[in-house]
């Protein structure tokens, strides 16, 4: 078995022996249930009137139909994912510093590039699984709530946009790996995640969201049912470039920085 496969299997083992998969799954499970609950409220005007504040929140989601519901799921994975996927990444990298196991990794006869790559691969695979899990659960919940307006074309469009949002959000986690390595622990990456989350909201409201990497996935999520993409290819390129920058900077940090 080559070193990359060995490293991936070891990283997978480390991840699944921790509580991180359970925590992140539990947190992301809330998304479809909250979305389904809002749709349930929007479907019933009399219930909506009696719920006051919650109803007002639900009204922001639009109407009780599948385009609104799928758009809600996509935006939620884009925003919630920034936190959840970033949290996973910060754990995968930061734990080596906080548990001080980094020293054992650095002088092993294994390329540091392979170690970093295997960590990112495991992170991406687990986040993709979580995204698919939320989508499937969302479809089940949507069916249970009996949301109107479903068609196979809409379903395919919704799934496609949802997966694009998820994938772009996952890609945006690579800079978190760099901050976890640079900050030698969890604090810096978590701070970075919070700042990007806040900035993503602020920049999006100013109308420049399509040029700010962390705003882009959520903006794409709005497009479900509109028939055409809301953001341009430049936005997608910005996200990819940000991701590559995060990946390369993490690799360079592991390769060249003094690890004391």
């Amino acid at each position, binding site marked *: 078995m080559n*070193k990359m496969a*060995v*490293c991936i*299997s*070891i990283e997978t*083992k*480390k991840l699944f*022996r*921790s509580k991180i998969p359970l925590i992140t799954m539990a947190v992301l499970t809330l998304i479809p249930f909250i979305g389904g609950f809002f749709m349930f409220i929007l479907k019933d005007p009399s219930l909506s009137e009696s719920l006051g504040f919650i109803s007002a929140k639900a009204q922001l989601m639009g109407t009780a139909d599948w385009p609104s519901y799928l758009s809600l799921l996509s935006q939620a994975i884009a925003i919630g994912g920034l936190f959840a996927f970033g949290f996973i990444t910060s754990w995968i990298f930061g734990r080596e510093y906080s*548990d*001080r*196991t980094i*020293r*054992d990794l*650095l*002088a*092993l*006869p*294994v*390329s*540091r590039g392979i170690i970093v790559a295997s960590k990112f691969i495991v992170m991406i695979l687990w986040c993709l699984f979580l995204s698919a899990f939320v989508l499937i659960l969302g479809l089940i919940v949507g069916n249970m709530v009996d949301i109107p307006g479903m068609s196979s074309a809409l379903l395919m469009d919704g799934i496609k946009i949802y997966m694009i949002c998820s994938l772009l959000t996952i890609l945006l986690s690579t800079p978190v790996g760099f901050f976890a390595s640079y900050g030698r622990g969890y604090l810096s990456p978590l701070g970075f995640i919070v700042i990007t989350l806040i900035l993503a909201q602020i920049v999006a409201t100013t109308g420049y969201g399509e040029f700010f990497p962390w705003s882009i996935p959520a903006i794409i999520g709005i497009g479900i049912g509109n028939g055409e993409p809301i953001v341009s290819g430049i936005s997608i390129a910005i996200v990819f470039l940000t991701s590559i920058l995060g990946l390369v900077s993490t690799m360079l940090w592991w*390769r*060249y920085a*003094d*690890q*004391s």
Partner: protein
Amino acid sequence: MIEAISTVDLTKTYGDLRAVDNLNLSIGRGEIFGFLGLNGAGKTTTIRMLLGMITPTSGYCYLNGERINKSNMDIWNDVGYIVETPYSYPELTVRENLEIVRRLRGIEDRDCVDWIIDKLKLGEYESRRVEHLSLGNAQRLGIAKAIIHRPKILLLDEPTNGLDPAGIVEVRRLLMDLAENEGVTVLISSHKLDEISKIATNIGIIHEGRLIKEIDGGGLQDQLRKSLVLDGRNKLAMRSILFQAGYDMSAKDGDLRKGSHPLRVHDEGAVNAPEKIATLLVKAGHPPTLLKVEEEDLEMYFLRMIEEYEGIRNE
């Protein structure tokens, strides 16, 4: 013959601080080299440079004659190491942690995990999560990870930290066995000379990043200084009498006034003939209440070496 470990003018600076300063080490195969120094002397920084964890500011490190280069990871195939307190993945068991090292090192022989568990007496704990291990057993696991691949070079930074006396003896025996029977070269750092002196074939004392003294481990006892220890009712007067008689003493006036410090005469003549000193003091009306020849212990020797170096440096 190519040395197992060597450094050439190795230097590491952090701003104005010279953590390691033109260090030249040369450690032969099968040697146990005790790397001795106070905290912050530069031991760990040197070991980290030997492991490629940090890059020297200038100078070079060689392992088995190969210059250390972060892009040549194969250098570390034959190297085992402990850098300060060893840490393992807390949520994994002892066996799982060892399996990880076995796989990352590309060792095909799966029995090596059983071998090392047996060798380090970790059988009782092999299924226990590392987070539930005692400090001593976690240290054993660290040593197990360092030698699971039967390395030719061992770089150990304070490996007996946290071990109980029985554990320390066990590790000492293990290292001596590895060096004598398998030709393993060991660089072991410590700030305890008495511990190092029990296993090291050679000892290097590092201070402020510089190698200030190299001692043949077997000849260490010959280096220990003897002195004549004296006490009496008026130590200042005794000191003055001995000084006028030309004897070399270390006690300072302030220390003598406090009363707790005895007088120490390092003069070889005094050590070899203490009765002459006694006679001299009795005749002067200051008979000693204590008179004994004492050999400095290893810690005192270590501190003396540092003091002498600082004295030379300050001149």
